């Protein structure tokens, strides 16, 4: 594993009967980056994450996390995960949940109390720490799910669709948390099917569909290589003209010289476009 690589997946294959959920997929996650796994529901992201954390044993390939096999408990201690399914005890309070999870990671006494307090403060739930989780909103539960992942101060954080089903306010709060973690230099693997989240948060993005990695690059790199040309839409003389051009301003000037322009708009390529170009369908299909 090259220096700076924290997580390495090599030719990972996972099958469920006749269904191949992950098909020979390879990628590496570097220290300090936010790595996005973008793909529609059912693309194989969660299966891939479960292989990465040692929960599932791949049928083929190898996973290396912090130099070890995540199937071993001591290697798993290097990572924290916020699963897509909320993994919290609803009858316990936030504080009780975190204390329990902390003990599983070997925390105790003052260190445990400090980590519980700082994790709750980080996600803005310290004032509700004694409330039973069942009384939390969906967004608050998602934030607590994130706090549970951070509790033991892991090297790498795996966030599996961390904003599913949350209100805009909680989503922004979670984004702020993730950006704060990025500033701390934390390594994060972030799976989502929301392209705007990947664009906003991720340093590099791997686009996954049908268990395969279709493309992997920085957001700008993907847009440049797979997004196609900017789209210029011009309304003139009661009709709409659509143009794809590397020089939209030049095209606009040329059109203005021939006819009066009533209205125009310029659309830059997005990851949605990248996905469409790569798969022939949209992320939400």
């Amino acid at each position: 594993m090259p220096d700076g690589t924290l997580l390495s997946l090599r030719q990972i294959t996972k099958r469920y009967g006749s269904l191949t959920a992950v098909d020979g997929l390879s990628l590496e996650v570097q220290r300090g980056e936010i790595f996005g796994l973008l793909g529609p529901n059912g693309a194989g992201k969660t299966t891939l994450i479960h292989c990465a954390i040692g929960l599932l044993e791949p049928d083929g390939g190898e996973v290396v996390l912090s130099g070890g096999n995540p199937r071993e408990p001591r290697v798993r201690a290097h990572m924290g995960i916020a699963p897509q399914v909320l993994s919290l005890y609803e009858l316990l309070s936030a504080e009780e949940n975190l204390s329990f999870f902390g003990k599983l990671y070997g925390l105790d006494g003052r260190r445990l109390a400090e980590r519980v307090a700082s994790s709750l403060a980080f996600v803005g739930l310290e004032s509700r720490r004694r409330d039973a989780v069942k009384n939390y909103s969906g967004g608050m539960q998602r934030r607590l799910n994130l706090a549970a992942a951070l509790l033991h101060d892991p090297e790498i954080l795996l966030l599996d669709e961390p904003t599913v089903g949350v209100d805009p306010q909680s989503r922004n709060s979670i984004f702020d948390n993730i950006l704060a973690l990025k500033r701390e230099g934390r390594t994060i693997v972030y799976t989502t099917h929301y392209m705007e989240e990947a664009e906003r948060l991720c340093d590099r993005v791997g686009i996954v569909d049908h268990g395969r990695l279709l493309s992997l690059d920085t957001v700008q790199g993907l847009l440049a290589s797979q997004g196609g040309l900017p789209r210029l839409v011009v309304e003139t003389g009661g009709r709409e003209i659509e143009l794809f051009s590397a020089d939209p301003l030049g095209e606009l000037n040329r059109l203005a010289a021939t006819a009066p322009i009533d209205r125009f708009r310029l659309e830059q390529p997005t990851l949605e476009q990248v996905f469409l170009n790569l798969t022939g369908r949209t992320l939400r299909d």
Partner: protein
Amino acid sequence: MSAILALAAKDLRLLIRVKSGLFFAFAWPLVIAILFGAIFSPSGTESRRMAVALADEDQSAGSRDFAALLAKSADFDVRPASRVESIGLVRKRQEAAALILPKGFGEASQQMFHGTPPKVEVWIDPSRQAEGAMIQGLLFQIVMKGFQKKMADTGAMRAGLRQSIEEVERSKAPPGQRASTARFLESMDRALGEMPAASGAGGGGQGAQWEPLSIEQHDVAIQQEGPRNAFEITFPQGMLWGVLGCAMAFAIGFVSERTHGTLLRLQMAPIGRVQLLAGKALACAVACLAIEVTLMAIGRFGFHVVPHSWALLALAGVSTVAAFVGMMMLIAGLGKTEQAAAGVGWAVMMPLAMFGGGMVPLAFMPHWMATAGTISPVRWGILAFEGALWRGFSFQEMLLPCAILLATGAVCFAIGTRTLRLS
């Protein structure tokens, strides 16, 4: 180890948070034990007559009259027997008390207002002192009835009084007491002469140090055979119901962890499968033991459920817990969802409880049912508890039920952990 303890503490905390689960784990078995114990208690349904054995060693007219009065009494259910038999019946708790009318009872009963009163020996279980006091009161009542009868027969009464006056004059009592007793008896005699049909007397013993009956109470060392009360049958049943309910609650809770995703986080923690399963088993075992201890404490201090051996009771308790922790794991392994686990669990547990003596006490079961019940760990659990409570099992006799319980636990645990899909 700290991870296992943390897992167990978390599960126990969750158990406590679900009030309905807590009720069915702790309170419901207690309700069953007390309710059925009260229903099966003789005092609840049967005659309130006190069962006594009577040994008439005097065989005189006086003692036979007394025995007849006892037999006619609405307060006593009398079984005639010899002295040895009577005391033996009390020892075996087949009779509440043994009443012995010793030699000289009849002669003494003829004396009125002086001399040695007729003596009755009352042999009783020392733990039933309250009943002893009640028996004494009832005996005095019966004696007074006899006295009343004598007073109604004026002729016999006057003959008795004259005999008593002669005996008083011959006695060695202090002259003052002799004279006053004689004067009292003479005035009684005169009064009876003036009232030939006198009906009843006021029991004029005042002034004389005389009592109509002398009761000598003795304690009988109890030889245990059978339960001392119905609660000794229903409390083992209650404990088994509690343990069974607890195992079901933990099995469903385990499945719930899988369906709600919390098991995923547990598996991602740096703990192994063995630790995870051990934590679950420990929590279930602690809760089951707590139920047993709670019920036993209430039984001991509230309902006279007393083990003949605390050590054997502990062995029975631990063996039963081991069996049901194993069954908890098996049910958790069989159920894919909470509903499936509950369905499978109760479908298995109810027949086991039914045939195992959880509903009908083992002692009252038809033979075929008792035979069928041998496959049920509930039966062996109840038998082990009863063995330690009232069946008087030795350590060797306890080995069979306890070994079956431990083996059941081990097999179920092994199958359960193999079939349990954690993810």
